[in-house]
């Protein structure tokens, strides 16, 4: 129900007014009688209150414009249309995380975008997208809460079309009529394996191994430090976002579960660097995507994984699961955390294919548009701490992989070649591997294969 807001008549002989200031903008919620805009007339300047409660839908007359009295200057939508829903709340778990967040698995719902889909879309008309609501108080009513409780519906998934985006009786009835969305059981104290992975499928009858049973890692992060050691002096408390908590849980679990061993090697990237320098402009022009060093590393890793399949495996109890696909997860740093989108079938792509996939995944990771399947089913990982400086890193394995390749910074260093000093583009790489499955010999040979592939790069890029 829309309400017209008109230019009021401030006095008997006043027939027009000028809008001097809008106190609200389209999309803002307004209460009845809340000051909405300021006007200036011949006789008086005034603050004009809103005639009704709702959301300011449209401003028809802008600041500085003069119109006759009774002219419609704005429209208020009383149905609580949240056409411009509040700006994305910060620290929202990115889309793939939602799968094991309190949001239930996507079900057929008339108006709500499935929570596990891309970032809060504005597609659902006049509804506050359910995925925006986590962390905020949910406005409903006693009736609605009762109905939700009776049917096990998670109100965070119900879009609200009542005043101010409230969930009204109609809204929850619509969800019920569409089959209802049962609330997910509260997530276990630990998430499933890699951060973005939803509850993994039930495992086979493999004998229960100690730490990783049923494909799930049950770890809560522990802290044996007395509180006084943390809380002293001046401090500020920042609660962890969902993503942060999942990262924390995963890291601790991974360290506990895998026997991390680290091997470091140094790779002469000069050949690759020069190839890239020569090709990158034309590459960009031709393929409309930037050429980085990453596809070279990915292809080198693929070569290593092909030669040493044990590096491309997972451990289930006492069964080593050798993956036939080579899906390489690439760690992407986000402003609000970290995510590992997967380049599937990396062994079947060329440099261009890998680069395109990488760029696409990274961009969508940053704009929260990844799909759940894009962060699942990785068989090996690569991370690039070198991009932030420093020589090399010692990364944590992303479960349930058994290895992760960490790339250092590529920089020119003096090295010895044929008993002379040469300046070469060098890069330290670290292989973190799980010694339960992979022994040093395999690890080093793998690493050597990676090095060899890069130092003797032969594949054309363009």
């Amino acid at each position, binding site marked *: *129900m829309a309400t017209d807001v008109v230019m009021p008549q401030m006095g008997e002989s006043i027939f027009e007014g000028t809008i001097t200031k809008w106190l609200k903008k389209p999309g803002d919620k307004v209460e*009845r009688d809340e000051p909405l805009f300021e006007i200036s007339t011949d006789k008086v300047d005034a603050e004009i209150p809103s005639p*009704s*409660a709702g959301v300011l839908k449209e401003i028809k007359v802008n600041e500085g414009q003069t119109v006759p009295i009774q002219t419609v200057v704005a429209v208020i939508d*009383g*149905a*609580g249309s949240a056409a411009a829903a509040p700006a994305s709340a910060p620290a929202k778990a990115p889309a793939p995380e939602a799968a094991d967040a309190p949001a239930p698995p996507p079900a057929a719902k008339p108006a709500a975008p499935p929570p596990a889909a891309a970032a809060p879309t504005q597609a659902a008309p006049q509804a506050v997208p359910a995925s925006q609501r986590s962390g905020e108080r949910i406005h409903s*009513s*006693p*009736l*609605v*809460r*009762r109905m939700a409780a009776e049917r096990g519906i998670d109100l965070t998934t119900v879009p609200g079309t*009542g*005043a101010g985006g*409230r969930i*009204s*009786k109609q809204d929850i009835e619509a969800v019920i009529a569409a089959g209802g969305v049962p609330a997910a059981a509260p997530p276990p104290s630990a998430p499933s394996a890699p951060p973005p992975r939803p509850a993994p499928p039930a495992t086979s009858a493999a004998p229960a191994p100690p730490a990783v049973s049923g494909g799930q890692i049950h770890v809560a992060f522990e802290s044996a430090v007395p509180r006084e050691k943390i809380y002293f002096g001046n401090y500020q408390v920042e609660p962890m976002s969902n993503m942060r908590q999942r990262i924390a849980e995963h890291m601790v679990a991974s360290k506990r579960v895998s026997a991390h061993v680290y091997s470091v090697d140094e790779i002469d990237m000069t050949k690759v660097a020069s190839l890239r320098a020569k090709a990158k402009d034309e590459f960009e022009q031709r393929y409309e995507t930037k050429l980085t060093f990453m596809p070279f590393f990915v292809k080198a890793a693929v070569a290593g994984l092909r030669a040493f399949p044990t590096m491309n495996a997972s451990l289930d109890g006492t069964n080593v699961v050798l993956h036939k696909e080579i899906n390489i997860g690439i760690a992407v740093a986000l402003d609000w955390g970290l995510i590992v989108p997967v380049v599937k079938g990396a062994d079947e792509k060329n440099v261009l294919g890998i680069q395109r996939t990488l760029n696409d995944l990274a961009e969508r990771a940053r704009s929260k548009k990844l799909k759940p399947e894009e962060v699942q089913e990785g068989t090996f990982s690569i991370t690039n701490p070198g991009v932030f400086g420093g020589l090399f890193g010692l990364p944590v394995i992303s479960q349930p992989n058994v290895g992760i390749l960490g790339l250092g910074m590529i920089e020119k260093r003096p090295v010895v070649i044929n008993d002379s000093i040469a300046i070469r583009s060098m890069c330290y790489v670290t292989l973190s591997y799980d010694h339960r499955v992979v022994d040093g010999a395999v690890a080093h040979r793998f690493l050597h294969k990676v090095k060899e592939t890069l130092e003797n790069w032969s594949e054309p890029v363009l």
Partner: protein
Amino acid sequence: MAEANGTQITFLEAIKQAMFEEMERDPAVVLLGEDVGVYGGAFKTSEGLLERFGWERVIDTPISESAIIGAACGMSYAGLRPIAELQFIDFIVCAFNQITNFVAKGHYLWNAPAPMVMRGPSGGGVHGGPFHSANPEMYFVHTPGLKVIYPSTPYDAKGLLKAAVRDNNPVLFFEHKFLYRRIKGEVPTEDYTVPIGKATVRREGKHLTIISYAAMMHTSLEAAAALAKEGIEAEVIDLRTLLPLDEETILESVRKTNRCLVVHEDTKTGGIAGEIAAILCEKAFGDLDGPLMRVTALDTPVPYSPPLEEYFLPNAKKVFDAAKELARY
């Protein structure tokens, strides 16, 4: 005296007929008050009664509400069934002590019931000013031991007044003076009563419940008609009796519509809307899909100036606006 042949009679006529018929039926029923006998009542509600029933049963009293009520109370202890008229209900508060301490408590204290009716014209909207427009019902709803009735139609007025006379409890019977001559309705020729303590649904609806009584009941119906044009179907309940309150009917309706708006001409603070809101919160919390709203008169004495009185009173537009806001909540 107009005949009741299933024809339309005014609210005022309905009161008169009820008194006449009860006094015919039961010789214990007497009427006392200021100007009720010779003059026939300030509003002519007792015109013709003196001629018919004589001065022992139709008694002109001095101007002393305390005396009227006190005497009526005594008469009721002695076996009569008096109807005590307050010329303007505003003056009932002169008899406040008699009503609250004797009439209401006698049965509880001394097993001395007071089967009497206290009636008179109440309410505003007639430019009566602050001494002739009162709605004092809540003083008495707040007093255990009494019954309080406030009808809105001629049919209910006649039936409830008869029921009040026949009730062995002391009953306050408020007649909204605005309705006296403005409302007409059909009443049966034969004897009938309307049960005390039962509300009625005047209009069925599903989007919200409007609860009201007396003159505002008609205002609410008017607003409901306007709401219907916008697709909002309001259910309108006429309380008819304020004490004892018909909780059942109210709860049933709000459980259906999930939203409630109370409209009363009484001032806001301490009005029955607050009572109803509390009852709904206690007994129907899980059924509420919106705030409990009320449209009432302002918390001031009744203004004498007509535009101020209009501003002071609820009206169909105010009810319409509130109901619309509630329906869209």
